[in-house]
C-alpha cells in the first residue's frame, strides 16, 4: 500500500515535469537541430532543485510527500540525462561541430554553475530571512 502511495505521489510530479520538458521541446524547435528545449529544461531544473531542497523545504515547511512529488517526481522528470546523450549523438552525426561543442559546453559547465547558483541563492535567502527576523 505504501508503494502505491509513493507511486501516486511521484506520478503527479513526473507527469507534469515530463510534459513541461516535452512542451519546451516543441516550443523551442529550431531549424538547425539545436536542442534548445532539453537545454532550457536541464539548466532551469539544475538551478531550482538545490533551491527547493536547501531553501523552500525549510521556509515553507514542505512535507516529505510534497518534496518527493516536487524533487524526485517533477524536477527529476523535467530534467533528463538520456535525451542529452541522444541530442549529443545527433549533433555529432549532423557534423556540425560548432553546435556540438556549444551544446556540450553549455550543458556540462552551465548545469554545474546553475546548481552552484541555486545553492548560493538558497543560502542568501535563508540568511536574509534570518537577518530580517533578528531585526524584529
Amino acid at each position, binding site marked *: 500500500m505504501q508503494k502505491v502511495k*509513493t*507511486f501516486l505521489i*511521484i*506520478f503527479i*510530479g*513526473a*507527469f*507534469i*515535469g*515530463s*510534459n513541461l*520538458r*516535452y512542451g519546451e*521541446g516543441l516550443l523551442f524547435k529550431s531549424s538547425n537541430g539545436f536542442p534548445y528545449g532539453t537545454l532550457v529544461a*536541464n539548466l532551469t*531544473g*539544475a538551478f*531550482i*532543485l*538545490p533551491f527547493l*531542497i536547501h531553501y523552500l523545504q525549510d521556509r515553507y515547511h514542505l512535507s516529505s510527500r510534497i518534496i*518527493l512529488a516536487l*524533487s*524526485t*517526481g517533477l*524536477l*527529476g*522528470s*523535467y*530534467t*533528463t*540525462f*538520456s*535525451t*542529452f*546523450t*541522444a541530442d*549529443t*549523438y545527433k549533433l555529432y552525426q549532423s557534423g556540425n561541430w560548432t553546435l556540438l561543442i556549444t551544446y556540450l559546453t553549455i550543458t*556540462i559547465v552551465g*548545469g*554545474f554553475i*546553475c*546548481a*552552484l547558483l*541555486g*545553492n548560493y541563492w538558497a543560502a542568501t535567502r535563508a540568511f536574509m530571512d534570518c537577518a530580517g527576523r533578528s531585526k524584529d
Partner: protein
Amino acid sequence: MTFLLVGFGASIGAFIRNELTLLSQKIKIDFPIITLLINIIGALILGIFTAHVHNGGLLLFLGTGFCGGFTTFGTLNMELSQLWFQRRFFSCFLYFALTYIIGILGFIIGIHI
C-alpha cells in the same frame, strides 16, 4: 494524446529511479553511484529504443517518457555541487567524467547493439 504517453512513461521511470535511490541509502558508499548507474543505464536503453523502436507513439512513451523520467540531470548537478562544497574535488571530477563519458558512450553502444 501524446502528453499521456510522455506522462505515463515518465512516471514509471521516475518511480523506478526512486526505488533505486532508496536502495542506495542502504549501501554505504560515499559516492553518488546510484545516480551514475541510473544515468548510464538510461542512456544505453534510450540508444536501444532509438535504434529499434520505429513507432512514433511508442518511442515517445519509452524515450521521452520512460528514459527521460528515469534519468535525471537535476540530481546529477545537485550531487556534483555537494561534492564541490564538501571540497571533495577529486570525487567531483570523477563523477563528472564518468557520467558524461560513459553516459554518451552508453547511448552510442545502445544505438549499435
